[in-house]
């Protein structure tokens, strides 16, 4: 049975739609259109001389081996952060879902890091792992690890992954907790009566029932890694060493703001925009499928 509001004419529904549409135009289509237009221009930093170059900025981008390296870095970074933050979030949610004393305090404490600004989170981790001052760096060194995120790309990557993951665990925890609360206790009890042990109950009942939440979080996490980790990367590594932690969004900033190459930077934003539109499309498709459950 379809539910549909009935309007007498076409004027009223369109008028009601107008404010929303105006907001979308002003805050999305207009800037997005400007980015596309800018990506076809080549100009100096001050915008005194401007030349229309069509798709040349994209051609330069496609011929730049660094850009592919950035894509690879972004892929490695996103997969690591998404996997780690999802699994830690799930583990903590399952633990917190049990009948324990002070569960509310626990939960509140676990949600806390989400309120920390990315740059602040970055600086926290930077201090802990600063080669000559950081507590954890000193510990690593005493174990004989030559910890040096300034020169070792893997170390720098570990550092930004840790900071980005730590920041995102709370969010995932919150959604998994809500997902767990929605699973009927009777199903789990029935399985327990049938003799299924906790691990088996988790993998055969709880986890499949959580999968819509998990998939939603996966998409959200990837979007998070693509855009919101900018502050962490900027404060921890500045994209270095040797570009080993330069993700796509960080390169947009580097080339556009620091390098005054607005055309090239806009072209990169457009590429990023396409990727995110694709991701969002996947998410919508998933939401539609979920309705049929």
């Amino acid at each position: 049975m379809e539910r549909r509001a009935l309007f007498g004419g076409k004027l009223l529904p369109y008028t009601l739609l107008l404010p929303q549409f105006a907001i979308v135009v002003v805050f999305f289509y207009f800037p997005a259109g400007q980015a596309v237009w800018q990506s076809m221009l080549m100009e100096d930093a001050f915008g005194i001389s401007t030349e229309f170059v069509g798709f040349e900025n994209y051609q330069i981008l496609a011929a730049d081996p660094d850009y592919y390296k950035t894509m690879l870095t972004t892929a490695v970074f996103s997969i690591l952060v998404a996997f780690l933050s999802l699994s830690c979030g799930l583990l903590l949610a399952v633990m917190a879902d049990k009948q324990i004393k002070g569960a509310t305090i626990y939960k509140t404490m676990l949600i806390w890091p989400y309120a920390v600004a990315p740059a602040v989170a970055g600086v926290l981790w930077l201090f802990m792992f600063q080669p000559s001052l950081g507590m954890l760096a000193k510990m690593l060194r005493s174990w004989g690890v030559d910890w040096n995120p300034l020169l070792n790309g893997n170390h720098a990557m570990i550092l930004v992954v840790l900071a980005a993951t730590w920041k995102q665990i709370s969010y995932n925890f919150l959604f998994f907790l809500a997902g767990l609360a929605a699973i009927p206790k009777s199903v789990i009890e029935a399985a327990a009566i049938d003799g299924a042990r906790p691990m088996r109950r988790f993998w055969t009942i709880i986890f499949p029932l959580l999968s819509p939440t998990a998939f939603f979080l996966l998409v959200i996490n990837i979007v998070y890694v693509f855009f919101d980790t900018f502050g962490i990367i900027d404060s921890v590594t500045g994209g270095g060493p040797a570009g080993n932690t330069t993700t796509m969004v960080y390169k947009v900033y580097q080339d556009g703001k620091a390098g005054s190459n607005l055309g090239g930077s806009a072209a990169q934003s457009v590429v990023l925009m396409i990727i995110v539109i694709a991701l969002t499309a996947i998410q919508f498709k998933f939401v539609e499928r979920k309705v049929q459950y």
Partner: protein
Amino acid sequence: MSIGRNISRIAAGALFAGTALTLAVPASAQTEIQWWHALTGANNDVVNRLAAEFNASQTQYKVVASYKGSYADTMNAGIAAFRAGNAPHILQVFEVGTATMMSARGAIKPVADVMEEAGKLFDPNVYLPAVAGYYSTSKGEMLSFPFNSSSTVMWYNKDAFRKAGLNPDAPPKTWPEVFEAAKKLKATATPNCGFSTAWVTWVNIEQFSVWHNIPIGTKANGIDGFDTVFRINSPTHVKHFANLAELAKDKTYVYGGRTNTGEGTFTSGECPIMLTSSGFYGNVKANAKFDWGNAPMPYYPDVPGAPQNSTLGGASLWVMGGKSSNEYKGVAAFFAFLSDTDRQARLHTESGYLPITKAAYEKVKASGFYNANPYLETPLKSLNNKAPTENSRGLRFGNLVQIRDIWSEEIEEILAGKKTAQQGMDAAVARGNASLRQFERTVSR
């Protein structure tokens, strides 16, 4: 209801306060001069004091100094403001941004023109040659007003030198001597570090080339034209980076990062030798809990003509275009105020930045200030070591902010052992040239 009444009362109060304020300040004919800068801490105080003194010295103009973040942030803020049509009158731009500003002829007004139109005396010859050369076109026209300048020196820990059995009053002069001293220091006094450098490209490429009288790029390091190409893969450059990479393996050389964040390892005592800006002076003086000193940058003795002279770091003041002639008169009056010899001398002795005019330098020298503060004169001696050549007058490359990042990436690859020094420097040249061509294309139309 009561909320609504409160709001209207607050609004009425605000309106009243606003009226009172307007009445309190007499409608004056003062012209405001906006000055955007990037100086923090003690130097921020210096800037504010200069503005206050100027404002107190006359009634016609009012200089408003605003801090806009780091050097790069300030420059970007100025560019963005220009694009939006509300640029400040005076913008402080660091030396790396000089080429970008110079090429933006429609966005800036040459300082020589500003002074001439206002009938103020402006003679580029009063400046130290290294300073005037850095901010002048190839035809000798000075485009910006030199403000705060520094240069590279080698800071060293005298206590660590004593512990290692080295003479603290005879610091190493050449790179091979530095390497030997660093090995001894690491073996005896400072187990985690022999020596380090901050601002890795400024010290190891830009100042290094100038000090050895070898070109960074063609066309007199870009000063004579934007169609310049880099020359930093010369045998001397490659040898230097090969040495650094070799010494980085056992931490005799410790990479200090792209900016000055690594400087803390000197003041904490971890690294006994640190090559960085002379502007590090205030920090060392305040935080180093050991006997310290500084010395000129080291050189390779087998390079003919080395050491040549060093070049500048720091920033200059640019006058932005499109303002009224009255406003330009105010800018000129402020610059004339800043140029006063006594004021320049005081700025130097108080801030630790270099004196930029010959008269101020002579005056401070004659006062015997350097006998008590010899470490403030080291960078000046380096700057004036010899008459500047084509290779040591300065450097002017477009996109240099971005190119420095490219170079840093390649240096990091060399030091991590992923590329040989030759491969890394070849790539630094090729990638840097690509960026230069992009810049040339956007400015030469």
